[in-house]
Protein backbone atom coordinates (compact mmCIF):
# COMPACT_ATOMS: atom_id res chain seq x y z
CA UNK A 1 0.00 0.00 0.00
CA UNK A 2 1.47 3.36 -0.98
CA UNK A 3 2.35 5.66 1.86
CA UNK A 4 -0.12 8.44 1.22
CA UNK A 5 -3.36 7.07 -0.15
CA UNK A 6 -6.50 9.15 -0.47
CA UNK A 7 -9.90 7.97 0.77
CA UNK A 8 -11.07 7.38 -2.79
CA UNK A 9 -8.08 5.18 -3.50
CA UNK A 10 -8.74 3.16 -0.39
CA UNK A 11 -12.31 2.56 -1.53
CA UNK A 12 -11.06 1.59 -4.95
CA UNK A 13 -8.44 -0.80 -3.64
CA UNK A 14 -11.14 -2.52 -1.62
CA UNK A 15 -13.28 -3.09 -4.67
CA UNK A 16 -15.97 -0.60 -3.72
CA UNK A 17 -17.74 1.33 -6.46
CA UNK A 18 -17.68 5.08 -6.86
CA UNK A 19 -21.35 5.01 -6.00
CA UNK A 20 -20.46 3.53 -2.60
CA UNK A 21 -17.84 6.19 -2.16
CA UNK A 22 -20.28 9.02 -2.91
CA UNK A 23 -22.86 7.47 -0.61
CA UNK A 24 -20.30 7.41 2.16
CA UNK A 25 -19.41 11.06 1.53
CA UNK A 26 -23.03 12.24 1.63
CA UNK A 27 -23.79 10.16 4.73
CA UNK A 28 -20.82 11.66 6.49
CA UNK A 29 -21.71 15.22 5.57
CA UNK A 30 -25.30 14.68 6.70
CA UNK A 31 -24.19 13.30 10.04
CA UNK A 32 -21.87 16.27 10.44
CA UNK A 33 -24.79 18.60 9.83
CA UNK A 34 -23.18 20.16 6.77
CA UNK A 35 -25.19 21.98 4.13
CA UNK A 36 -25.78 20.00 0.89
CA UNK A 37 -23.73 22.60 -0.93
CA UNK A 38 -20.66 21.42 0.97
CA UNK A 39 -20.90 17.86 -0.32
CA UNK A 40 -18.62 18.49 -3.34
CA UNK A 41 -16.05 19.82 -0.92
CA UNK A 42 -16.20 16.65 1.11
CA UNK A 43 -15.93 14.51 -2.03
CA UNK A 44 -13.05 16.60 -3.30
CA UNK A 45 -11.16 16.32 -0.05
CA UNK A 46 -11.72 12.58 0.10
CA UNK A 47 -10.45 12.24 -3.46
CA UNK A 48 -7.39 14.42 -3.27
CA UNK A 49 -6.16 14.72 0.28
CA UNK A 50 -3.67 12.15 1.45
CA UNK A 51 -4.62 10.30 4.58
CA UNK A 52 -4.12 12.13 7.80
CA UNK A 53 -1.57 10.48 10.06
CA UNK A 54 -2.95 9.81 13.49
CA UNK A 55 -1.09 8.86 16.63
CA UNK A 56 -3.49 7.26 19.06
CA UNK A 57 -2.25 7.15 22.64
CA UNK A 58 -3.75 5.15 25.46
CA UNK A 59 -3.40 6.40 28.99
CA UNK A 60 -5.32 5.63 32.14
CA UNK A 61 -8.41 4.10 30.57
CA UNK A 62 -10.44 0.99 29.84
CA UNK A 63 -10.17 0.95 26.02
CA UNK A 64 -13.92 1.26 25.65
CA UNK A 65 -13.40 4.13 23.22
CA UNK A 66 -11.42 1.87 20.91
CA UNK A 67 -13.98 -0.87 21.35
CA UNK A 68 -16.69 1.56 20.33
CA UNK A 69 -14.64 2.99 17.47
CA UNK A 70 -13.95 -0.34 15.81
CA UNK A 71 -17.69 -1.02 15.85
CA UNK A 72 -18.52 2.02 13.74
CA UNK A 73 -21.93 1.24 12.27
CA UNK A 74 -21.00 -0.03 8.87
CA UNK A 75 -18.18 -2.58 9.11
CA UNK A 76 -16.78 -1.54 5.76
CA UNK A 77 -16.92 2.11 6.70
CA UNK A 78 -15.08 1.34 9.91
CA UNK A 79 -12.48 -0.56 7.95
CA UNK A 80 -12.14 2.25 5.48
CA UNK A 81 -11.83 4.87 8.18
CA UNK A 82 -9.09 2.86 9.82
CA UNK A 83 -7.26 2.87 6.54
CA UNK A 84 -8.10 6.42 5.60
CA UNK A 85 -6.70 8.10 8.61
CA UNK A 86 -3.49 6.13 8.52
CA UNK A 87 -3.58 5.12 12.12
CA UNK A 88 0.17 4.86 12.42
CA UNK A 89 0.46 4.32 16.11
CA UNK A 90 -2.08 2.71 18.40
CA UNK A 91 -0.74 0.47 21.13
CA UNK A 92 -3.84 -1.71 21.31
CA UNK A 93 -4.40 -2.20 17.59
CA UNK A 94 -0.88 -2.28 16.19
CA UNK A 95 0.77 -5.54 15.17
CA UNK A 96 4.15 -4.24 16.29
CA UNK A 97 4.99 -3.87 19.94
CA UNK A 98 7.67 -2.64 22.30
CA UNK A 99 10.60 -0.59 21.05
CA UNK A 100 9.62 -1.23 17.46
CA UNK A 101 6.29 0.53 18.00
CA UNK A 102 7.78 3.39 20.00
CA UNK A 103 10.15 3.87 17.08
CA UNK A 104 7.18 4.28 14.74
CA UNK A 105 5.72 6.97 16.95
CA UNK A 106 8.98 8.96 16.89
CA UNK A 107 9.22 8.48 13.14
CA UNK A 108 5.72 9.87 12.56
CA UNK A 109 6.43 12.76 14.86
CA UNK A 110 9.50 13.64 12.83
CA UNK A 111 8.16 12.99 9.33
CA UNK A 112 4.81 14.67 9.81
CA UNK A 113 5.92 17.37 12.18
CA UNK A 114 3.00 19.72 12.79
CA UNK A 115 0.69 17.71 10.54
CA UNK A 116 -0.34 14.65 12.46
CA UNK A 117 -3.29 14.40 14.74
CA UNK A 118 -2.84 13.25 18.28
CA UNK A 119 -5.76 11.20 19.55
CA UNK A 120 -5.67 10.53 23.26
CA UNK A 121 -7.77 7.91 24.91
CA UNK A 122 -7.73 7.96 28.68
CA UNK A 123 -6.36 10.58 30.98
CA UNK A 124 -3.08 11.39 32.62
CA UNK A 125 -2.19 10.60 36.24
CA UNK A 126 -0.06 13.45 37.48
CA UNK A 127 0.65 12.44 41.07
CA UNK A 128 4.16 11.18 41.92
CA UNK A 129 5.57 12.15 38.50
CA UNK A 130 2.93 10.09 36.73
CA UNK A 131 4.14 6.68 37.87
CA UNK A 132 0.59 5.36 37.87
CA UNK A 133 0.60 4.99 34.11
CA UNK A 134 3.82 3.94 32.40
CA UNK A 135 4.05 3.36 28.66
CA UNK A 136 7.22 2.00 27.07
CA UNK A 137 9.28 2.72 30.17
CA UNK A 138 8.26 6.37 30.40
CA UNK A 139 5.41 8.00 32.25
CA UNK A 140 2.32 8.66 30.17
CA UNK A 141 2.55 12.28 31.30
CA UNK A 142 5.85 12.66 29.44
CA UNK A 143 4.65 10.69 26.42
CA UNK A 144 1.60 12.92 26.00
CA UNK A 145 3.58 16.11 26.37
CA UNK A 146 6.25 14.90 23.96
CA UNK A 147 3.77 13.73 21.32
CA UNK A 148 1.54 16.76 21.60
CA UNK A 149 4.41 19.17 21.03
CA UNK A 150 4.40 18.71 17.25
CA UNK A 151 0.76 17.73 16.71
CA UNK A 152 -1.54 19.77 14.47
CA UNK A 153 -4.51 19.11 16.71
CA UNK A 154 -5.50 16.96 19.62
CA UNK A 155 -8.59 14.79 19.87
CA UNK A 156 -9.59 13.86 23.41
CA UNK A 157 -11.50 10.60 23.12
CA UNK A 158 -14.07 9.74 25.71
CA UNK A 159 -15.01 11.02 29.13
CA UNK A 160 -11.52 10.26 30.50
CA UNK A 161 -9.55 12.42 28.15
CA UNK A 162 -12.28 15.08 27.97
CA UNK A 163 -13.32 15.52 31.58
CA UNK A 164 -11.65 12.85 33.72
CA UNK A 165 -14.27 10.12 34.15
CA UNK A 166 -13.91 7.54 36.93
CA UNK A 167 -10.16 7.99 37.36
CA UNK A 168 -10.47 11.54 38.62
CA UNK A 169 -13.69 10.98 40.51
CA UNK A 170 -13.43 11.94 44.15
CA UNK A 171 -10.92 11.31 45.81
CA UNK A 172 -8.83 10.91 42.63
CA UNK A 173 -5.97 8.84 44.13
CA UNK A 174 -3.65 9.12 41.11
CA UNK A 175 -4.18 12.83 40.46
CA UNK A 176 -5.64 11.99 37.05
CA UNK A 177 -6.24 15.00 34.83
CA UNK A 178 -8.05 15.36 31.51
CA UNK A 179 -6.00 16.24 28.43
CA UNK A 180 -6.80 19.94 28.35
CA UNK A 181 -5.21 20.30 31.80
CA UNK A 182 -1.98 18.76 30.48
CA UNK A 183 -1.63 20.23 27.02
CA UNK A 184 -1.97 23.90 26.23
CA UNK A 185 -1.60 25.91 23.07
CA UNK A 186 -3.01 23.21 20.77
CA UNK A 187 -6.50 23.02 19.35
CA UNK A 188 -8.28 20.34 21.36
CA UNK A 189 -11.59 18.75 20.50
CA UNK A 190 -13.33 16.85 23.25
CA UNK A 191 -15.40 13.85 22.26
CA UNK A 192 -16.87 12.82 25.61
CA UNK A 193 -18.88 9.72 26.41
CA UNK A 194 -18.03 6.49 28.10
CA UNK A 195 -17.45 5.50 25.35
CA UNK A 196 -18.36 8.05 22.67
CA UNK A 197 -20.67 6.86 19.90
CA UNK A 198 -18.67 5.24 17.10
CA UNK A 199 -20.26 7.37 14.38
CA UNK A 200 -19.46 10.50 16.35
CA UNK A 201 -15.80 9.44 16.53
CA UNK A 202 -15.56 8.69 12.82
CA UNK A 203 -17.51 11.87 12.08
CA UNK A 204 -15.03 14.03 13.97
CA UNK A 205 -12.08 12.40 12.22
CA UNK A 206 -13.71 12.83 8.82
CA UNK A 207 -14.36 16.47 9.50
CA UNK A 208 -10.79 17.13 10.56
CA UNK A 209 -9.51 15.30 7.51
CA UNK A 210 -11.90 17.04 5.10
CA UNK A 211 -11.52 20.61 6.25
CA UNK A 212 -8.08 20.44 7.79
CA UNK A 213 -9.36 22.02 10.99
CA UNK A 214 -11.42 21.11 14.02
CA UNK A 215 -15.20 21.19 13.75
CA UNK A 216 -17.13 24.01 15.37
CA UNK A 217 -16.94 23.54 19.13
CA UNK A 218 -19.32 24.47 21.91
CA UNK A 219 -18.43 26.19 25.16
CA UNK A 220 -17.08 23.01 26.69
CA UNK A 221 -14.93 22.21 23.64
CA UNK A 222 -17.19 19.54 22.14
CA UNK A 223 -18.16 19.42 18.46
CA UNK A 224 -21.50 21.19 18.09
CA UNK A 225 -22.67 18.79 15.41
CA UNK A 226 -23.01 16.00 17.96
CA UNK A 227 -23.17 17.65 21.36
CA UNK A 228 -25.39 20.70 20.91
CA UNK A 229 -28.58 19.14 22.21
CA UNK A 230 -29.45 17.04 25.20
CA UNK A 231 -30.47 13.41 25.01
CA UNK A 232 -33.77 14.54 26.53
CA UNK A 233 -34.47 16.91 23.61
CA UNK A 234 -34.72 14.10 21.08
CA UNK A 235 -35.71 11.26 23.38
CA UNK A 236 -38.48 9.07 21.97
CA UNK A 237 -39.92 8.86 25.50
CA UNK A 238 -40.29 12.64 25.72
CA UNK A 239 -44.07 12.43 25.26
CA UNK A 240 -44.30 10.46 28.51
CA UNK A 241 -42.24 13.13 30.25
CA UNK A 242 -44.52 15.92 29.13
CA UNK A 243 -47.57 13.88 30.01
CA UNK A 244 -46.23 13.17 33.49
CA UNK A 245 -46.13 9.41 32.96
CA UNK A 246 -43.09 8.22 34.85
CA UNK A 247 -41.58 4.87 35.66
CA UNK A 248 -41.50 4.51 39.45
CA UNK A 249 -39.78 1.16 39.70
CA UNK A 250 -38.09 -1.26 37.36
CA UNK A 251 -40.52 -4.01 38.35
CA UNK A 252 -43.60 -1.97 37.53
CA UNK A 253 -46.05 -2.05 34.68
CA UNK A 254 -44.92 1.48 33.73
CA UNK A 255 -41.38 0.23 33.06
CA UNK A 256 -42.77 -2.44 30.80
CA UNK A 257 -44.84 0.16 28.97
CA UNK A 258 -41.72 2.21 28.35
CA UNK A 259 -42.68 5.38 30.19
CA UNK A 260 -40.26 8.20 30.99
CA UNK A 261 -37.33 7.27 33.26
CA UNK A 262 -37.03 10.77 34.77
CA UNK A 263 -37.94 9.62 38.27
CA UNK A 264 -35.49 6.72 38.02
CA UNK A 265 -32.69 9.28 37.93
CA UNK A 266 -32.36 9.61 34.17
CA UNK A 267 -29.72 12.25 33.40
CA UNK A 268 -31.02 12.73 29.85
CA UNK A 269 -32.30 16.25 30.65
CA UNK A 270 -28.78 17.39 31.57
CA UNK A 271 -26.66 15.33 29.20
CA UNK A 272 -25.39 16.60 25.88
CA UNK A 273 -24.90 13.76 23.44
CA UNK A 274 -26.37 12.17 20.31
CA UNK A 275 -27.49 8.85 21.81
CA UNK A 276 -31.19 9.52 21.23
CA UNK A 277 -30.41 10.66 17.68
CA UNK A 278 -27.70 8.39 16.25
CA UNK A 279 -28.11 5.57 18.79
CA UNK A 280 -25.66 2.71 19.23
CA UNK A 281 -24.58 -0.39 17.34
CA UNK A 282 -25.80 0.70 13.92
CA UNK A 283 -28.87 2.38 15.34
CA UNK A 284 -30.01 -0.65 17.30
CA UNK A 285 -30.79 1.02 20.59
CA UNK A 286 -29.43 3.22 23.37
CA UNK A 287 -29.62 2.98 27.17
CA UNK A 288 -33.05 4.61 27.50
CA UNK A 289 -34.25 2.50 24.60
CA UNK A 290 -33.49 -0.61 26.60
CA UNK A 291 -35.23 0.72 29.68
CA UNK A 292 -32.33 2.07 31.68
CA UNK A 293 -31.99 5.71 32.73
CA UNK A 294 -29.17 7.70 31.17
CA UNK A 295 -26.28 8.03 33.63
CA UNK A 296 -24.90 11.10 31.87
CA UNK A 297 -21.60 9.49 30.92
CA UNK A 298 -20.63 12.29 28.54
CA UNK A 299 -21.00 14.99 31.20
CA UNK A 300 -18.14 16.34 33.31
CA UNK A 301 -17.61 14.50 36.61
CA UNK A 302 -20.64 12.30 36.18
CA UNK A 303 -19.28 9.79 38.69
CA UNK A 304 -19.54 12.34 41.45
CA UNK A 305 -23.23 13.04 40.73
CA UNK A 306 -24.41 9.77 42.14
CA UNK A 307 -26.40 7.76 42.95
CA UNK A 308 -27.36 7.02 39.35
CA UNK A 309 -30.96 6.16 40.23
CA UNK A 310 -32.02 9.34 42.00
CA UNK A 311 -32.60 12.80 40.58
CA UNK A 312 -30.72 14.64 43.30
CA UNK A 313 -27.09 13.77 43.82
CA UNK A 314 -25.67 13.27 47.28
CA UNK A 315 -23.68 16.15 48.63
CA UNK A 316 -20.49 14.20 49.11
CA UNK A 317 -18.78 16.27 51.79
CA UNK A 318 -21.80 15.91 54.04
CA UNK A 319 -21.84 12.15 53.63
CA UNK A 320 -24.10 9.90 51.59
CA UNK A 321 -27.84 10.31 51.84
CA UNK A 322 -27.54 14.09 52.11
CA UNK A 323 -28.98 15.95 49.15
CA UNK A 324 -30.17 19.45 48.27
CA UNK A 325 -33.68 18.89 49.62
CA UNK A 326 -32.48 17.50 52.92
CA UNK A 327 -30.15 20.46 53.41
CA UNK A 328 -33.01 22.80 52.53
CA UNK A 329 -35.45 21.18 54.93
CA UNK A 330 -32.90 21.28 57.74
CA UNK A 331 -32.16 24.97 57.05
CA UNK A 332 -35.87 25.89 57.03
CA UNK A 333 -36.40 23.83 60.19
CA UNK A 334 -33.49 25.64 61.83
CA UNK A 335 -34.99 29.00 60.84
CA UNK A 336 -38.33 28.01 62.39
CA UNK A 337 -36.64 26.75 65.56
CA UNK A 338 -34.54 29.91 65.75
CA UNK A 339 -37.63 32.09 65.33
CA UNK A 340 -39.47 30.17 68.04
CA UNK A 341 -36.54 30.47 70.44
CA UNK A 342 -36.20 34.18 69.69
CA UNK A 343 -39.92 34.65 70.26
CA UNK A 344 -39.69 32.89 73.61
CA UNK A 345 -36.83 35.12 74.73
CA UNK A 346 -38.72 38.19 73.52
CA UNK A 347 -41.77 37.14 75.53
CA UNK A 348 -39.70 36.51 78.60
CA UNK A 349 -37.98 39.84 78.28
CA UNK A 350 -41.32 41.59 77.87
CA UNK A 351 -42.71 39.88 80.95
CA UNK A 352 -39.63 40.87 82.89
CA UNK A 353 -39.98 44.43 81.61
CA UNK A 354 -43.67 44.56 82.50
CA UNK A 355 -43.03 43.26 85.97
CA UNK A 356 -40.26 45.78 86.41
CA UNK A 357 -42.49 48.67 85.30
CA UNK A 358 -45.32 47.55 87.59
CA UNK A 359 -43.09 47.84 90.65
Amino acid at each position, binding site marked *: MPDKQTYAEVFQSRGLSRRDFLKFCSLTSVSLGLAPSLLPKVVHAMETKPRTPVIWLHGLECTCCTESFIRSSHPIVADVIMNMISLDYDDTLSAAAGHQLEEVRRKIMKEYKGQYILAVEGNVPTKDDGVYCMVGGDSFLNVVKETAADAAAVIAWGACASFGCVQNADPNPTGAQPIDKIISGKPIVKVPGCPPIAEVMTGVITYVHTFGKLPEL*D*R*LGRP*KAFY*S*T*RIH*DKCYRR*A*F*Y*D*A*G*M*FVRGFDEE*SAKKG*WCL*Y*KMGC*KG*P*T*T*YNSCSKIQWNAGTSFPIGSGHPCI*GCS*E*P*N*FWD*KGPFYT*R*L*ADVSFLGTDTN*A*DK*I*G*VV*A*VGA*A*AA*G*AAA*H*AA*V*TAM*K*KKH*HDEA*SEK
Partner: protein
Amino acid sequence: MGRLIEEIYVWRLPVRLYHWINAFSIAALMITGLYIASPVLNPPHGEAVWRHNFAMWRYVHFGVAFIFTGNFLYRLYYALFSDDRYARFGGFRPWSPKWWGKPFKEQVASYLFLRKDEPNYVGHNPVAALAHFIFIFCGSTFMIVTGLAMFAENRPGGFLDAAFGWVLPLFGSSYNLHYAHHIVAWIFPFYLIVHLYAVFRHDIVDRTSVTSSIITGYKHKVEDEAAA
Protein backbone atom coordinates in the same frame (compact mmCIF):
# COMPACT_ATOMS: atom_id res chain seq x y z
CA MET B 1 -52.49 50.80 75.22
CA GLY B 2 -50.40 53.49 73.59
CA ARG B 3 -52.09 56.30 71.76
CA LEU B 4 -51.72 56.59 68.03
CA ILE B 5 -49.46 59.57 67.40
CA GLU B 6 -48.91 59.57 63.68
CA GLU B 7 -49.63 57.70 60.50
CA ILE B 8 -46.71 57.59 58.10
CA TYR B 9 -47.11 56.65 54.46
CA VAL B 10 -44.10 54.36 54.02
CA TRP B 11 -44.77 51.82 51.28
CA ARG B 12 -46.04 53.48 48.13
CA LEU B 13 -48.20 51.57 45.71
CA PRO B 14 -45.31 50.41 43.42
CA VAL B 15 -43.55 48.92 46.43
CA ARG B 16 -46.63 47.14 47.72
CA LEU B 17 -47.49 45.87 44.27
CA TYR B 18 -43.95 44.58 43.84
CA HIS B 19 -44.04 42.91 47.23
CA TRP B 20 -47.19 40.92 46.55
CA ILE B 21 -46.35 39.98 42.98
CA ASN B 22 -42.98 38.86 44.29
CA ALA B 23 -44.51 36.91 47.17
CA PHE B 24 -47.02 35.07 45.00
CA SER B 25 -44.42 34.45 42.27
CA ILE B 26 -41.98 32.95 44.75
CA ALA B 27 -44.69 30.76 46.25
CA ALA B 28 -45.74 29.54 42.81
CA LEU B 29 -42.14 29.05 41.69
CA MET B 30 -41.22 27.12 44.81
CA ILE B 31 -44.21 24.81 44.56
CA THR B 32 -43.90 24.16 40.83
CA GLY B 33 -40.12 23.93 41.12
CA LEU B 34 -40.26 21.25 43.80
CA TYR B 35 -42.88 19.42 41.79
CA ILE B 36 -40.73 19.51 38.65
CA ALA B 37 -37.82 18.09 40.64
CA SER B 38 -40.01 15.38 42.10
CA PRO B 39 -43.31 14.79 40.29
CA VAL B 40 -45.38 12.92 42.88
CA LEU B 41 -48.88 12.99 41.40
CA ASN B 42 -50.28 9.90 39.75
CA PRO B 43 -49.87 9.63 35.99
CA PRO B 44 -52.83 10.50 33.75
CA HIS B 45 -54.76 7.85 31.87
CA GLY B 46 -54.73 7.44 28.13
CA GLU B 47 -52.24 8.14 25.41
CA ALA B 48 -49.22 10.21 26.42
CA VAL B 49 -49.40 12.46 23.35
CA TRP B 50 -52.78 13.90 24.43
CA ARG B 51 -51.69 14.63 27.98
CA HIS B 52 -49.62 17.58 29.12
CA ASN B 53 -49.81 17.23 32.87
CA PHE B 54 -46.12 17.56 33.60
CA ALA B 55 -45.58 20.03 30.77
CA MET B 56 -48.17 22.30 32.44
CA TRP B 57 -46.17 22.39 35.67
CA ARG B 58 -43.13 23.40 33.73
CA TYR B 59 -45.12 25.90 31.68
CA VAL B 60 -46.41 27.59 34.83
CA HIS B 61 -42.92 27.58 36.36
CA PHE B 62 -41.39 29.26 33.31
CA GLY B 63 -44.28 31.69 32.86
CA VAL B 64 -44.23 32.80 36.49
CA ALA B 65 -40.42 32.97 36.33
CA PHE B 66 -40.70 35.63 33.63
CA ILE B 67 -43.26 37.56 35.72
CA PHE B 68 -40.91 37.26 38.69
CA THR B 69 -37.98 38.51 36.59
CA GLY B 70 -39.95 41.43 35.16
CA ASN B 71 -41.18 42.36 38.62
CA PHE B 72 -37.64 42.19 39.98
CA LEU B 73 -36.30 44.46 37.23
CA TYR B 74 -39.18 46.87 37.82
CA ARG B 75 -38.34 47.05 41.53
CA LEU B 76 -34.67 47.50 40.66
CA TYR B 77 -35.57 50.43 38.42
CA TYR B 78 -37.74 51.89 41.18
CA ALA B 79 -34.94 51.48 43.72
CA LEU B 80 -32.40 53.17 41.49
CA PHE B 81 -34.36 55.97 39.90
CA SER B 82 -37.34 56.86 42.07
CA ASP B 83 -37.36 59.56 44.73
CA ASP B 84 -39.08 57.24 47.20
CA ARG B 85 -36.83 57.56 50.24
CA TYR B 86 -38.05 54.30 51.82
CA ALA B 87 -37.65 52.24 48.66
CA ARG B 88 -34.40 53.59 47.25
CA PHE B 89 -31.02 51.97 47.49
CA GLY B 90 -29.73 55.38 48.58
CA GLY B 91 -28.88 54.62 52.19
CA PHE B 92 -27.63 51.08 51.63
CA ARG B 93 -23.84 51.26 51.41
CA PRO B 94 -22.37 47.96 52.62
CA TRP B 95 -19.06 48.77 50.93
CA SER B 96 -18.52 51.69 53.31
CA PRO B 97 -17.29 50.84 56.82
CA LYS B 98 -19.48 53.63 58.14
CA TRP B 99 -22.62 51.75 57.16
CA TRP B 100 -21.60 48.88 59.45
CA GLY B 101 -21.19 51.37 62.29
CA LYS B 102 -23.46 52.38 65.15
CA PRO B 103 -26.96 51.92 63.67
CA PHE B 104 -26.13 48.47 62.39
CA LYS B 105 -24.45 47.36 65.59
CA GLU B 106 -27.29 48.72 67.68
CA GLN B 107 -29.84 46.82 65.64
CA VAL B 108 -27.86 43.57 65.87
CA ALA B 109 -27.46 44.05 69.61
CA SER B 110 -31.18 44.61 69.92
CA TYR B 111 -31.96 41.40 68.06
CA LEU B 112 -29.54 39.55 70.33
CA PHE B 113 -31.24 40.98 73.44
CA LEU B 114 -28.08 42.85 74.36
CA ARG B 115 -29.98 46.15 74.53
CA LYS B 116 -33.07 47.05 76.43
CA ASP B 117 -34.76 49.33 73.92
CA GLU B 118 -35.61 48.66 70.29
CA PRO B 119 -34.20 51.09 67.72
CA ASN B 120 -37.06 52.37 65.63
CA TYR B 121 -36.94 52.86 61.88
CA VAL B 122 -39.66 54.05 59.59
CA GLY B 123 -38.29 52.16 56.60
CA HIS B 124 -36.00 49.15 56.76
CA ASN B 125 -33.55 48.91 59.62
CA PRO B 126 -29.91 48.19 58.55
CA VAL B 127 -30.12 44.51 59.41
CA ALA B 128 -33.32 44.14 57.43
CA ALA B 129 -31.75 45.99 54.50
CA LEU B 130 -28.78 43.62 54.56
CA ALA B 131 -31.04 40.58 54.78
CA HIS B 132 -33.14 41.83 51.86
CA PHE B 133 -29.98 42.45 49.89
CA ILE B 134 -28.60 38.95 50.50
CA PHE B 135 -31.79 36.94 50.13
CA ILE B 136 -33.96 38.96 47.79
CA PHE B 137 -31.46 40.85 45.65
CA CYS B 138 -28.60 38.31 45.46
CA GLY B 139 -30.88 35.29 45.78
CA SER B 140 -33.26 36.45 43.06
CA THR B 141 -30.40 37.44 40.77
CA PHE B 142 -28.86 34.00 41.19
CA MET B 143 -32.15 32.22 40.52
CA ILE B 144 -32.93 34.41 37.52
CA VAL B 145 -29.52 33.99 35.91
CA THR B 146 -29.30 30.23 36.50
CA GLY B 147 -32.94 29.83 35.51
CA LEU B 148 -32.49 31.69 32.24
CA ALA B 149 -29.34 29.71 31.53
CA MET B 150 -31.30 26.47 31.92
CA PHE B 151 -34.18 27.85 29.87
CA ALA B 152 -31.63 28.71 27.18
CA GLU B 153 -30.67 25.03 26.98
CA ASN B 154 -33.99 24.41 25.24
CA ARG B 155 -32.82 26.38 22.27
CA PRO B 156 -29.09 26.09 21.58
CA GLY B 157 -27.83 29.02 19.55
CA GLY B 158 -30.83 31.17 20.44
CA PHE B 159 -30.94 34.62 22.01
CA LEU B 160 -30.97 33.38 25.60
CA ASP B 161 -28.16 30.96 24.83
CA ALA B 162 -26.08 33.85 23.53
CA ALA B 163 -26.93 35.97 26.57
CA PHE B 164 -26.75 33.36 29.35
CA GLY B 165 -24.91 30.41 27.80
CA TRP B 166 -21.72 31.37 29.66
CA VAL B 167 -23.34 30.37 32.96
CA LEU B 168 -23.25 26.65 32.18
CA PRO B 169 -19.45 26.32 31.87
CA LEU B 170 -19.19 28.47 34.98
CA PHE B 171 -20.94 25.73 36.92
CA GLY B 172 -19.10 22.98 35.06
CA SER B 173 -22.08 21.13 33.67
CA SER B 174 -25.79 21.31 33.09
CA TYR B 175 -26.36 19.02 36.05
CA ASN B 176 -24.43 21.28 38.41
CA LEU B 177 -26.44 24.22 37.14
CA HIS B 178 -29.71 22.44 37.88
CA TYR B 179 -28.42 21.39 41.28
CA ALA B 180 -27.34 24.90 42.21
CA HIS B 181 -30.73 26.29 41.14
CA HIS B 182 -32.44 23.64 43.24
CA ILE B 183 -30.41 24.09 46.42
CA VAL B 184 -30.40 27.90 46.35
CA ALA B 185 -34.20 27.87 45.95
CA TRP B 186 -34.36 26.77 49.58
CA ILE B 187 -33.23 30.21 50.74
CA PHE B 188 -36.72 31.48 49.92
CA PRO B 189 -38.71 29.33 52.36
CA PHE B 190 -35.88 29.94 54.83
CA TYR B 191 -36.18 33.66 54.36
CA LEU B 192 -39.96 33.54 54.41
CA ILE B 193 -39.85 32.23 57.97
CA VAL B 194 -37.26 34.74 59.12
CA HIS B 195 -39.12 37.56 57.36
CA LEU B 196 -42.55 36.70 58.75
CA TYR B 197 -41.16 36.20 62.22
CA ALA B 198 -39.34 39.53 62.15
CA VAL B 199 -42.44 41.34 60.87
CA PHE B 200 -44.81 39.83 63.44
CA ARG B 201 -42.33 40.39 66.25
CA HIS B 202 -41.76 44.03 65.35
CA ASP B 203 -45.49 44.54 65.09
CA ILE B 204 -46.01 43.17 68.58
CA VAL B 205 -42.99 44.78 70.20
CA ASP B 206 -43.03 48.19 68.46
CA ARG B 207 -46.78 48.19 67.61
CA THR B 208 -46.05 49.92 64.31
CA SER B 209 -48.63 47.94 62.28
CA VAL B 210 -45.80 46.83 60.06
CA THR B 211 -47.78 43.73 59.07
CA SER B 212 -50.72 45.67 57.63
CA SER B 213 -48.44 48.37 56.24
CA ILE B 214 -47.59 46.23 53.23
CA ILE B 215 -51.30 46.27 52.34
CA THR B 216 -52.28 49.78 53.38
CA GLY B 217 -48.90 51.45 52.99
CA TYR B 218 -49.19 53.15 56.42
CA LYS B 219 -47.06 52.53 59.45
CA HIS B 220 -48.11 53.85 62.82
CA LYS B 221 -46.13 55.65 65.43
CA VAL B 222 -47.50 54.71 68.81
CA GLU B 223 -46.97 56.44 72.09
CA ASP B 224 -44.69 54.44 74.31
CA GLU B 225 -46.63 52.87 77.14
CA ALA B 226 -43.95 53.48 79.71
CA ALA B 227 -43.95 57.19 78.90
CA ALA B 228 -47.74 57.42 78.97
